[in-house]
């Protein structure tokens, strides 16, 4: 790790000021950031630690939405009775992130700000039509995730919470990379209160995307078979050591069908 300065933020406003002043980077759970810094792949001059900001913690129900504070740990989301009751798919997704030790440190805010192309949360946000709340504004998920490791966040903008509308049904099916256990392909399927269906895919492309063909098929018939029958275009999908684009395309429909089956 290169040399780095460290600041503890007291409030969201304080964090924004510190980030603006130092040009530094916000430190949430650090499960991706510290790892990248150790490998000298990231070199922030200053870390602004958000862990002391009380207002970023916690899970609450707000009308038809579940609102999760940005610094809420994956493990706490996974075990939250509130989340399990309202959107069990979110709890299940959280339980499948990284490993237990990582879930005990990593946060939802840190994960979505990082926008790793194989992270799980972006699929949930996009499929559920969630809203990312920051110190400055509210951003709908579809506008939040830009490209690989890219988001709509400004340098001094801090995520405070994510608001998930409660769907009729939802489920997430992940096919893990055999080595990293990140999503080789992860598909989040949601049937929204208005009956529309959204299918968001992570791991398969440079950034999370909606599988419109599968959405259309599921709008006609919300069945595993309908999802499975869709041939997904492989041309824009990732190809690497672990999976060709064709294999990823195939897995998108298989995982979508399994997610639909899990929706019950």
């Amino acid at each position, binding site marked *: *790790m*290169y*040399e*780095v*300065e*460290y600041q*503890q933020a007291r409030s969201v406003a304080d964090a924004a000021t510190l980030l603006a002043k130092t040009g530094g980077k916000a*430190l949430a759970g*650090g*499960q991706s950031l*510290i*790892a990248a*810094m*150790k*490998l000298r792949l990231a070199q922030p001059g200053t*870390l602004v*630690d958000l*862990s002391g900001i009380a207002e970023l913690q916690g899970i609450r129900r707000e009308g038809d939405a579940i609102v999760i504070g940005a610094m809420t740990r994956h*493990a706490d989301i996974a*075990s939250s009775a509130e989340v399990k009751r309202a959107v069990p798919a979110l709890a299940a997704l959280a339980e499948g992130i*990284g*490993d*237990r*030790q*990582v879930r*005990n*440190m990593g946060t939802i805010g840190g994960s979505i700000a990082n926008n790793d192309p194989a992270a799980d949360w972006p699929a949930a946000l996009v499929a559920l039509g969630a809203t990312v709340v920051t110190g400055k504004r509210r951003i709908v998920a579809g506008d939040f995730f830009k490209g690989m490791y890219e988001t709509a966040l400004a340098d001094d903008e801090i995520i405070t919470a994510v608001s998930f509308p409660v769907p009729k049904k939802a489920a997430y099916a992940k096919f893990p990379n055999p080595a*990293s*256990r990140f999503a080789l392909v992860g598909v989040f399927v949601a049937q929204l209160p208005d009956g529309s269906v959204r299918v968001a895919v992570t791991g398969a492309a440079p950034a999370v995307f909606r599988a419109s063909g599968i959405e259309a098929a599921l709008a006609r018939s919300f069945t595993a078979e309908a999802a499975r029958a869709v041939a997904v275009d492989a041309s824009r999908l990732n190809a690497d050591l672990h999976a060709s684009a064709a294999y990823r395309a195939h897995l998108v429909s298989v995982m979508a069908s399994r997610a639909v089956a899990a929706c019950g």
Partner: protein
Amino acid sequence: MSIPIAMTVNGKAVAADIDPRTLLVDFLRTNLGLTGTHVGCDTAQCGACTVHMNGRAIKACNVLALQAQGATILTIEGLAPDGTMHPMQAAFKDCHGLQCGFCTPGMVMSALDLVNRHPQADEATIREQLEGNLCRCTGYHNIVKAVQQGAAAMAK
């Protein structure tokens, strides 16, 4: 730049001035001489560095010491302060759940967290929940047995 840090490690208050880039695992191993917590990888996957922070298993190689400011840390050295092995340690010995011993402290600390969260875990759950800990010696067979036996002993 060095920053003052204070925390409680294995029941004792400790304090030091540290370089901000000091990882928790280096603080434990180098500053405190608690070398039972090991470093087996640099991508936070092997789990040899697992300790408990405020009652939860974390990977000490992937956390800055400063992130543990004011925290309560438990390492393998603090598990059996009076010299009698913790039931989980005893179960690992009894089931031959260790060979070279290098992953063992992290494995035991992870196993304890596992049992805290899943007291009734069956074999499949234990295997799944050990995802964050690599062992190259045992093939996990006896580790799984040890966790089951340790969990049963802890329930008594």
